[in-house]
């Protein structure tokens, strides 16, 4: 990184000059999102799955359902567990090993969007109150990193959840008895995360890798179907004015509505 400092500065200047004119290196306008492609149901072994392409950023999410114990403070609710792996084939900067701060932050931001918007009806995932519930594992797998992993992962996670089906069952003496057929996972809200990079005091939406490498800071704002905010995360070692943040919130709400509409959510 240090050896590349000069290169970074040159690129930073170039990107900043373009942005001052309302333009971006890849031809987008400041508030243009990259193209989103979603494929669902690609992993037959998983209860749900999706692959999202956001430009060249590629994220796969698999959903597995197991049974387990509820948390003591929510005995009537299923458990949601979001995990992210920045596997080393996705970027020369990712290394094998236990999750680092970046993958943990990624997982927790996606988790908060789903959890705080109450996207999943967790009460429907209770088998025996206080004893046995369904545990929903959402595993985010980043396959190619070309910027804005948070938005791509949030989209992939939701797409995978919407694709998830659970086998039908009855409870007999506390044991699960399978019945024929499947039911979709009870997903009732569609939180969408929109991330902005701040470069030279301007905000651009959906930053790609070259922009992330020169940005001062980023802010992610997740909104639900009603346009309410359900999660925010500032990242990076820069800062924002409150005006910038309020503007970002407004744009995030609009962009999320656009995306939801385009995807039929």
């Amino acid at each position, binding site marked *: 990184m240090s050896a590349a400092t000069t290169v970074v500065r040159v690129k930073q200047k170039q990107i900043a000059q373009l942005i001052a004119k309302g333009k971006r290196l890849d031809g987008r306008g400041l508030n243009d999102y990259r193209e989103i492609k979603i494929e669902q149901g690609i992993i037959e072994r998983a209860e749900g799955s999706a692959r999202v392409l956001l430009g060249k950023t590629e994220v796969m999410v698999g959903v597995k359902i197991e049974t387990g114990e509820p948390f003591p403070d929510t005995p009537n609710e299923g458990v949601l567990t979001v995990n992210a792996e920045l596997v080393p084939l996705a970027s020369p900067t990712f290394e094998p090993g236990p999750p680092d701060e970046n993958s943990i932050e990624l997982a927790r931001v996606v988790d908060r969007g789903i959890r705080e918007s109450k996207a999943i009806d967790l009460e429907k995932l209770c088998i025996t109150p206080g004893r046995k519930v369904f545990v929903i594992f959402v595993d985010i797998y980043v396959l190619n990193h070309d910027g804005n992993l948070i938005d791509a992962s949030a989209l992939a996670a939701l797409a995978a959840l919407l694709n998830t089906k659970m086998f039908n069952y009855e409870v007999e003496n506390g044991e699960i008895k399978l019945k024929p057929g499947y039911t979709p996972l009870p997903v009732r809200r569609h939180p969408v995360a929109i991330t902005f990079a701040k470069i030279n005091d301007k905000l651009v939406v959906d930053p790609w890798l070259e922009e992330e490498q020169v940005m001062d800071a980023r802010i992610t704002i997740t909104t639900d179907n009603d346009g309410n905010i359900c999660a*925010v995360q500032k990242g990076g070692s820069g800062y924002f004015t409150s005006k910038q943040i*309020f503007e970002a919130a407004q744009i995030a709400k609009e962009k999320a509505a656009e995306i939801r509409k385009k995807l039929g959510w």
Partner: protein
Amino acid sequence: MSQKVEKLIDKRGLRLDGRKPDELRPIKIEVGVLSNADGSAYIEQGKNKILAAVYGPRELHPKHLALPDRMVLRCRYHMAPFSVQERKSPAPSRREIELSKVIREAVEPAVFVEYYPRTAVDIFVEVLQADGSTRCTSITAASLALADAGIPMRDLVAACSAGKVEDMIVLDLMDVEDKVGSADVPLAYMPNLGVITLLQMDGILTIEEFEKTVNLAIEGCKKIYAMQKEALKAKYVSVKEVEE
């Protein structure tokens, strides 16, 4: 053993601990409390009891992690096993790892990182007792510990949460308000520059509520900022008195 939750706001509009909606918890700040650290600060904010220490600028191992044009700023946020209701395992949790990152990124904008290239500055935060909004209290303490260590800074960083509790926007959430309330917005601020260096949110807020909450948190930060400056002054006054 779960906490039973009464109403969080009473008829007079007061909170469980008697505070008004826009009132901070009682705050006690001490700077320079540890003899080994290059800088340190101790804060009590309500029942939060938090200690921050700074070591550095110092050498970095392994050396190839050093940066040629700036210092490496590192931060570890850690909770004592006895700081919470159920004993916490000493191994860092995912939550602690995320908070270490956002706290570092909240104080870094204040630091002139280019003054000490090829060095490391370490911030260690220990939560001795936790009662909600500990990341904010930690940032307030970390920023003072940096100043106490003589790290060159643009401004102090003050941090405070605001949120929504039973339809009311309130300042400085304590644990039960955070857990049972409907939204929590931790925020860090540099008052002289008027900029936000930490912003997170969870819960549900309309855009209007969100703006109101952010603005209230900023007001909280300004009050805390005044106390930070008092505490720094108090330390240097008492040092001077000792020297004289």
